[in-house]
């Protein structure tokens, strides 16, 4: 019962968050709605018994990515040309009717195709069998990470280091 409630709540949160991201005019709002949507996804992870994933999701997205987005917005808004009345940054257009109509077309096509697939999966998936009880996944993910997927684990560490250094180097303003 608790699970269904949580699923309903977080599902709604994600969906409406995502829709809000799509339809807000203001980029900052979009970022916040994205944050809400990602929290919704974390909730969904919880309903799926993936507690470690939920925590990771919260730590990474809430703590990192969204703030990054916000900073990026701040750092890229303030040119004289775009400055608003109070030298507030005028954020470029978030898309108008034309772009949305094109997007709608694309979405329609994608929607029809994916629904066809999902219905196919749904038909073939027998929901009858009993699902296993929730268990803590932290230890098992930990062991898996350093046994089966150790290579991916090491490579991702290198990747993150690379990203870190790269981001710093790229975004640093040139001296010239």
């Amino acid at each position, binding site marked *: 019962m608790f699970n269904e409630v949580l699923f309903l709540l977080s599902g709604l949160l994600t969906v409406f968050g995502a829709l809000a991201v799509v339809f807000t005019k203001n980029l*900052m709002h979009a970022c916040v709605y994205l944050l809400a949507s990602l929290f919704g996804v974390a909730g969904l992870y919880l309903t799926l018994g993936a507690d470690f994933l939920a925590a990771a999701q919260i730590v990474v997205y809430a703590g990192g990515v969204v703030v990054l987005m916000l*900073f990026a917005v701040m750092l890229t808004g303030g040119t004289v040309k775009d400055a608003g009345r109070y030298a507030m940054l005028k954020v470029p257009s978030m898309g108008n009717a034309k772009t949305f109509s094109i997007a709608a077309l694309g979405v329609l096509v994608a929607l029809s195709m994916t629904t066809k697939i999902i219905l196919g999966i749904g038909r073939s998936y027998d929901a009858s069998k009993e699902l296993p009880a929730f268990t803590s996944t932290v230890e098992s993910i930990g062991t898996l990470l350093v046994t089966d997927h150790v290579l991916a684990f090491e490579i991702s560490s290198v990747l993150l280091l690379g990203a870190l250094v790269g981001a710093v180097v790229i975004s640093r303003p040139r001296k010239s």
Partner: protein
Amino acid sequence: MNDSIVSYLSQFPAYKSFVSAMSSAMGFDAAGIATLLVFFVACFVVVNVLALVGGLGTYAERKISADIQMRQGPNRVGPYGILQFLADGVKMISKEDLMPRNADKFLYTVAPLLCLVGVLATLAVLPFSSGFTLTDLNIGVFYLLGVSSLVGVGIFLGGYSSNSKWSMLGGMRGASQIISYEVPVTLSILAIVVLGGGLSFGTLVGAQGGLPHEWFVLHNPFTFVAFIVFFIGALAESNRAPFDLPEAESELVSGYHTEYTGMRFGFFALAEYIEVFVLCGVAAALFLGGYKVPFNLGTGEFLVNTLNVGPLLASKVGNFLQLGSFVTKTLLLYYVVIWCRWTFPRLRVDHLMVICWKYLTPIALVNLVGCAVWMWAFNGQSLFKIVFGH
């Protein structure tokens, strides 16, 4: 899976009778709803107590700072000014709640909420006592770190949405400070996690003993340095004392919550004080043995063996003892935090950043590696144990 306060309470017959009454009333097995209700009540209690603590925090701060500055502090409202915080609260509520004209209305209102939510969410895992922690998630520490970073977002949005240069700068600096100090804090916690062998507060506190020598802080030199790094990081993360540049009155007119008035400002202030309490609690739990009572009084065995009291009653008493030890340790640290505020000068922004990235983070990394090596070398024994044998 992770035992929570409800699971603890459900041991008591009273809870069972309550559940049976509920289910007979509701006509179907109301266990789920019962737990929900109990959770709700527990959360209500905890939140209000913490709010109270937050309020007392302001009072304590003003009294201690006065004491440090050889003056009395508030003594008008209630005996020794103890009710001062209530007066402030009433003031907060009665003040007019205005919003700057071009402020981003939605974000302006959401920012304080985010801050408060971020802080209050951490209470779920704070280990008051072995029974009274709301839920002992097995990803407790990880969850706490994640949620507490919401505060940074709230501060940033608050600064941005109030549409003024000072708040903007304050917000930017506050968010960047909080995010950057998260790194050393996380690494130091990881050091303890390595020792403790688990992410949940229960296991971590359980791994420590009642007496100081069994605490992690004295476990080995690395953990001691880790405690100091954690404490400094905690100060910075809660925008307190030497690191309180975002709302520094002299430069930024009070930083990100300049434009906030009334209860919105109240949320910010409340969030801040609760966060200090939470961080001190975490410090106490991870480094100072948390709710562990010396001589194992907390578990209630002593009472059972000696006074052959009923095990349930014994555990109840034990819990209260544990709660007492946890609160005293946290308040002691709270005092230190306030003490720091009036002793250390404020840091310049670049100094702030330099300390974080060039000093704290490397030290924290070394500690983490040190602890791991220590674990491997002395397979987890504390220094005291090695030296004194047991």
